[in-house]
């Protein structure tokens, strides 16, 4: 793993609609150090979804630099991006997005399938991950036989299977009741404590409060980038996270909670 999971520098994204050009992102820059837990917030129209698509390598920026690890993703071909998605990014969606025809185990295997790394070793790992998220008993079930919380756990297990640079969670708790949401957020917390990098897009403040750092977008630019209570209260677990805090602190953006 590299020092930074993701680095964005002056990212711009324009959409051409008929004669009109919509400038969704107008020079967003921020870094995500490995081991960080970032919440991205912003009202609708702030460029949140666009940023999410860029972070997920589903789209390419119009200009700017986007390094995922040490690789410049902004200049990759479609197939290369697909490989990056399969090997370096763990997606967790609001509506779980499991493949209905597949069992729990098969769903967790999907990213390995597209990396061409489906082996007995990989399958063993999938089983371990299912156990990690508490679904060891339900490997043969189909998504329709699971509750929303369980489905989201499968999605999280799936996002972990390729040892991603970061987990990209898009309103991961949006479809869940408060109790289940809390469980999922606890799971994220636990994963972050183990050193996993998490980028979470949400519009709920109390969900964002679980993160170590909140990035607020407005009109396509980063409006604020602040550590949360967690960052201040928690002792940094890794020197990298500490350096991130120091950097954040030195830039004068730290607001005492």
């Amino acid at each position, binding site marked *: 793993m590299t020092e930074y999971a993701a680095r964005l520098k002056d990212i711009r994204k324009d959409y051409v609609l008929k004669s009109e050009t919509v400038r969704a992102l107008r020079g967003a820059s921020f870094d995500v150090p490995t081991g960080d837990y970032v919440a991205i917030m912003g009202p609708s129209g702030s460029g949140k979804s666009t940023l999410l*698509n860029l972070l997920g390598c*589903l789209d390419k920026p119009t200009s700017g630099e986007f390094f995922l690890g040490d690789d410049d993703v902004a200049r990759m071909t*479609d197939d290369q991006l*697909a*490989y990056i*998605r399969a090997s370096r990014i763990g997606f967790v969606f609001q509506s779980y*997005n499991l493949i209905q025809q*597949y069992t729990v185990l098969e769903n967790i295997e999907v990213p390995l399938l597209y990396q061409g790394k489906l082996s007995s070793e990989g399958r063993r790992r999938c089983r371990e991950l299912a156990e990690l998220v508490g679904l060891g008993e339900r490997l043969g079930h189909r998504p329709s036989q699971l509750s929303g919380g369980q489905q989201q756990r499968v999605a999280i297990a799936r996002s972990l299977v390729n040892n991603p640079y970061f987990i990209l969670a898009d309103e991961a708790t949006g479809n869940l009741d408060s109790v289940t949401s809390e469980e999922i957020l606890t799971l994220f917390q636990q994963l972050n404590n183990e050193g996993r990098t998490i980028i979470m897009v949400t519009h709920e403040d109390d969900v964002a409060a679980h993160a170590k750092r909140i990035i607020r977008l407005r009109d396509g630019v980063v409006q604020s980038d602040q550590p949360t209570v967690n960052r201040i209260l928690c002792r940094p677990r890794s020197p990298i996270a500490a350096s991130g805090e120091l950097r954040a602190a030195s830039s004068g953006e730290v607001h005492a909670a």
Partner: protein
Amino acid sequence: MSFFLRTFQLGLKSLLLHPMRSLLTVLGIFIGVASVIWLLAIGEGISQEAQRQIEGLGADNIIVRSVSPPAEVMAAFSGPVPYGIKRSELATLEQIPTVKSALPIREVRRTFTFDGNDLDGRLVGCTPEYFTVTRLELERGRLLTEADNNNAQNYCVIGSGAAEELFPLTDPLGQRVYLLDSKDYYQVVGVLKYRNPTAAIGGSLEAQDFKNDVYIPIRTLRQRTGDFIYTRRGSTRTVEIIELNQVTLRVQDVDSVKVTADVVRMSLGVREPEKAHVVDSDGSEGGETKVTNVAANASLPPPRLDVAVIVPEELLEQARVTRMMFMVFMGLIAAISLLVGGIGIMNIMLATVTERTREIGIRRALGATRSHIIMQFLVETVSLSVVGGLTGILVGLLCPAVIVGLRYLMNTFAPELMANLPDVVQRIQPQIVLLSLPLAFFISVMVGVVFGIYPAFRAAKMDPIEALRHE
């Protein structure tokens, strides 16, 4: 490989998800593939049958037969009219350098009697060589010899059926068969083995059933009967004047058969069937008969209608052409069926792609490349068409059984209808062409690929972000 397996597995799963839909979708392919196998099997059956018959005549033979002229010609004469091949013409034919030998035969329908048993059959006057050329094999005793012929002996060789009918209890060898019509006796010197009857060929050669034949030296027949054939059938009597019924010309090699046939036709004044036909249509002015019409056409001599030249080699070619036409026709039907089936599959796959937009989005987000998506949908389409193809092959294999069963049913429940059907239909024995099985399989795979490509590309072309948002 694991990707491919998993994709195939998923393809089968989604097939089973909508069993009825899949069933209806593959129906077209199923029919197309089954008909490919059927048409090849039936075509092969017909061609083998035709081949057997024609080869029975001998590919290096030319058969010249006397045929009774059309009734309209005969009506112009009163009383019996001599027709057919003349002995002088036989001498001419023997002069053709490429002809090895010419075997004349005479045939008369006669009633044979022995010890109270009657049998209607053919009395055939022939030369010893005739048995070899017609592939008549000896069961017991001996065949006729050159000496028998030269001395015009009263010896005869009888067919297997005649032996059974006339001599149910006695050994036929050495016994004497009595002929009611000509009131004379022939001593049996040999009995022939059973030979498969031949079907009628080309309208001029009747079906031949060899089992009730009695063969005597041709010289004997001529001495006993002369050229007037006086036949009594119940109360009607017919008189025919005919010198030779048939001459089988043995050509020295197969390559010169065609040239020889042309020479034979020319020397006898017989036109090739197609040419005669052209003359017929050209010369038809007014309501006169064909013969006079053609005679009126000064540039061409009138064609002879009382002699037919049958060239097995040409018939073989005709049979091949007929078979080709049959194959092309059936092939067209199969192609249409496959096309319709393929369009059906494409239609369903397009619907499936739309239905599964979100799944495509998920897969793309999780790292599937466009080619992965294309592969996935191609494999699914091919699985569909291969399922149709395999069932089609299975049903195709049933072809011979179905034909035999159908014929049995027809014979049992609608015998009259069956009797009116052409000979080919009654005798056809479909032969599964082994090559048609891999061919059918290949065709079904190809249909899957060809009609699956467009839906697969449509799936792959989707924007993953849009697809993910799709409800």
